[in-house]
């Protein structure tokens, strides 16, 4: 789910780039020094996750993981996703450099929202963490598909047509993401629960 170069008109590209720069700047201000290693690890997981392709009919879709990134990093997730996407566009030719702003918005905003949602949903038990992780994982991908449709609608496409295609193509991803996120979150809850504090001091 990456937007390529030249798909969006100049105005949308520039506007999303400006919003992304602002988001990265705000995100940078939230980062605390002792969180840097955690952000690095989560960013590299996000960077590699999009290489996990699931064959689906004639095409194939891949993991995105905005839910897990949001749950783990909170406000810093926008920075993490922007950096991951930047390196993906440089090294993997996923998306494009000019569409980087739009792509970062498409995956960064769901991550931020999922981070907030995760903090309010997660209780103190393992089961609630699992449910919160699954909800965030599925919802992150769903929101990303909706933002993709909204961005393409700004480019003059039919919103409901694109949204339908994007949602249909990612139905398997919603479930896989929900499962992966629930697994990752419950695992972390058992071995290192302070990682799940989402950018706030957890202990």
């Amino acid at each position, binding site marked *: 789910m990456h937007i390529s170069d030249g798909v969006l008109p100049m105005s949308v590209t520039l506007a999303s780039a400006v919003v992304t720069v602002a988001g990265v700047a705000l995100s940078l201000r939230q980062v605390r020094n002792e969180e840097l290693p955690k952000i*690095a690890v989560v960013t*590299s997981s996000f960077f590699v996750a999009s290489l996990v392709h699931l064959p689906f009919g004639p095409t194939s879709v891949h993991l995105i993981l905005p839910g897990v990134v949001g749950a783990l990093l909170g406000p810093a997730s926008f920075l993490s996703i922007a950096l991951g996407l930047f390196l993906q566009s440089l090294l*993997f030719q996923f998306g494009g450099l000019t569409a980087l702003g739009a792509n970062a918005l498409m995956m960064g905003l769901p991550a931020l929202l999922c981070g907030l949602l995760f903090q309010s949903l997660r209780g103190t038990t393992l089961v609630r963490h699992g449910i919160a992780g699954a909800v965030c994982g599925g919802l992150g991908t769903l929101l990303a598909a909706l933002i993709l449709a909204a961005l393409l609608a700004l480019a003059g496409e039919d919103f409901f047509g694109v949204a339908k295609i994007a949602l249909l193509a990612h139905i398997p991803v919603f479930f896989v993401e929900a499962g992966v996120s629930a697994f990752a979150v419950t695992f972390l809850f058992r071995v290192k629960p302070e990682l799940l504090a989402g950018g706030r001091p957890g202990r």
Partner: protein
Amino acid sequence: MIIGQGKGMAWQVALLLALCWLLLSLPAVAEEKAAAASPSVESCADLAALFVRQEEHTSRELRQLKRDLAALSQKLEEPGTSEIFGGIGYIFGIFGVAAYVASRRRDGGRGN
């Protein structure tokens, strides 16, 4: 000197003779080869059938080649291990530098 000259003449004559023999025998060899390669060519219909067979064979091989080429180009588009590990290295490097700068700033503040 005379002997040397005679020897040279003899060489030239031998070479000329060999060349003549080669030239005379070449067409015959070519005809024999052609006859051996297409033993069944007797009429126009046979020739046409042969062409069709060869055409089918060639197009089958071409299809195979095109498939291989498409698979290869798809494989080339996929990121390889060097890109994946390079990207992870970039990320760790960037955050490593950030952590270094942050720690220096903190230490500097403590020193002052």
